[in-house]
């Protein structure tokens, strides 16, 4: 039984505990021995993306220490995993302990598809769902093929959700345009950020989505904030919340 270190990003820990719980349940039901090391805090992405590498470095080191002993590290966030996998090296240099950790740190969907080898998804979700393909999961982790690239088709998230009974995944006019969250960008470029978010929502609305599903609560927090302010009926859900009740098997 693999020992999985559950990495719950700081904003998920604080604002979306149910997403952490859903992730925990999914991993446990797959038979993993899941632990949540309480010494974890944040991967340092907000500092790193602001150019403050010196402030991010101790957090990267801390992450490395906290998660050193696990077979796998899994997080319900493409963005934070891409911080570990793509950018820790720029902070800490080439270190064998880092490359080992980076190679076994996974976003939840890719863990389910690539490591747990989930082929069968038994469950029900009778909703029209628009997939929000958050950028870092898409273009850093390659959870799917981005619309710019001419590679063979690939979409790990759709592979999982599409198998649910009753689900209807709607077609968007712009399948993977950024929602405009972008970390501190959401505040420092508030005007463009919100227009991007509203445009994304309009695309989902036109396609008839009832639920916007994604693998990054940060983008969904931004979209949810806009949806609630404009009193729209669409709601956002993390993929983990949708898969929580389903029976997943290789």
């Amino acid at each position, binding site marked *: 039984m693999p020992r999985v270190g559950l990495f719950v990003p700081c904003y998920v820990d604080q604002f979306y*505990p149910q997403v952490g719980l859903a992730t925990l349940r999914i991993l446990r039901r797959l038979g993993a021995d899941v632990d949540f090391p309480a010494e974890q805090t*944040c991967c340092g992405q907000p500092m790193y993306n602001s150019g403050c590498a010196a402030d991010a470095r*101790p957090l990267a080191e801390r992450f490395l220490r906290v998660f050193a002993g696990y077979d796998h590290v899994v997080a319900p966030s493409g963005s934070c995993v891409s911080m570990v996998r793509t950018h820790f090296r720029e902070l800490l240099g080439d270190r064998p302990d880092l490359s080992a950790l980076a190679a076994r740190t996974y976003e939840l969907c890719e863990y389910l598809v690539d490591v747990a080898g989930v082929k069968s998804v038994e469950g029900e979700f009778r909703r029209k769902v628009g997939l929000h393909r958050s950028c870092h999961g898409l273009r850093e982790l390659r959870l799917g093929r981005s619309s710019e690239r001419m590679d063979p088709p690939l979409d790990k998230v759709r592979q999982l959700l599409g198998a649910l009974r009753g689900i209807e995944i709607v077609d968007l006019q712009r399948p993977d345009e950024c929602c405009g969250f972008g970390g501190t960008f959401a505040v420092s470029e508030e005007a463009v950020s919100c227009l991007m978010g509203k445009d994304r929502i309009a695309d989902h609305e036109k396609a008839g989505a009832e639920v916007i599903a994604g693998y990054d609560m940060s983008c969904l927090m931004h979209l949810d904030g806009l949806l609630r302010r404009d009193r729209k009926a669409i709601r956002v859900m993390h993929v983990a919340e949708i898969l929580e009740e389903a029976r997943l098997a290789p």
Partner: protein
Amino acid sequence: MNSFHAERAAAFTRDVPHAHWHDTALWFVRVKRDRGAASVPEWERLRDAASGIKAHTLSRLADYLEEFERNAASNGIQVHWARDGAEHNRIVGEILERRGVKVVAKSKSMLTEECGLNPYLEARGIEIVDTDLGERIVQLAGEPPSHIVMPAIHKKKEEIGELFHRKLGTAAGLSDPKVLTEAARQHLRRKFLGAQAGLSGVNFAVAETGGIVVVTNEGNADMGTSLPPVHVASMGVEKVIPRVRDLGIFLRLLARSATGQPVSTYTTHFHAPLRGGELHVVIVDNGRSQILGREPFRRSLSCIRCGACLNTCPVYRRSGGYSYSYLIPGPIGSVLGPQRDPVAHASLPFASSLCGSCSDVCPVKIDLHHELLALREEIRSQNILPWSKRLAMQVASFVLRHPVLYRASGRVARSLMRAGLVRFGPAGAWARQRELPEAPKESFRELWKREGGGREA
């Protein structure tokens, strides 16, 4: 750091229908690009090859430039070297003055914009006519280009009708693109006939042949350089490619990436001057060798100026070219500008959500969004980042290094949020158009602890 981009972008987005019109116009080009790229089964291999050739060339740039110079000279081309924009302008000015040139026809060149050639020549009594339709429009309007391939993309056809009415004497109220284009065509035809010299940019300079290649869709570079006896072509040092066989890779990528066309309408190879005429090539550094010496940013010199990163950028599409403090807007400009002047262009690396669409669309695989990220670090290390942001990140880092502090401040922040007391600073900017998240009573770690290691889950 300044908030140049954020302020101008906020002004641009205030007129939402106009911002949407701009976004849609550019997205249309992005979709055409996707169709063009999809029609080439080996598209990703072409990108790999182009990227490899550029990386190789940049690693031996001086050698290839000298090879180009030797071969060009033996073809009868006069090659000049300019350290910076001022030297470039002086060289071009002297060539023109020696021949007593008073009117020149110029085809599109972002390099001459970078060097400020037009005002330099105008101050010396030389009339310079931009002959690319979009360039001519912005020249008549007294504006800089807002896009590197489609300089007047920010103007609606009605605005152009009004501009032509004022400047070219066309009837009032025209907005039919065909009629407007025809008016421009007649106007430019007279200018072409009167020009005593032609200026152009250079898309590719081929080291092994000593020839240059100029790509246009309107044939204006050909019109402008075929009649007059003098042709002056300006190129940045990074435009050289080793072999003529490399051209096929770049030309296929360039046209599709820029507009989705399988091939540009005119691809002209200049190998020698006209009979009895002069062909000058001015090779310009203007800071490029500095960039070449900086490892994380070297790849930005691979750029072939297709504009695809602008068209795909969700921020550029919704903020327009004039929101960028550098003359090249969008992701590539935000990488190049701060390297020229980090203080003046400090807002540009932050004018991005780091979505990475630019890097995936780039035909020569410049890692644009990672270069933007690296530039943010430079801005921090040069202390251009505002103290408030620096302090905020230092405090956040300190709190996050101490789990006890993190847990306590999380609990306090959530109860303040539930009480509706968080509404200033970043939270205020967040909440102008958005609700803050609904803060739960318990964090995940509290639930985990209470449930004894999450056993209930």
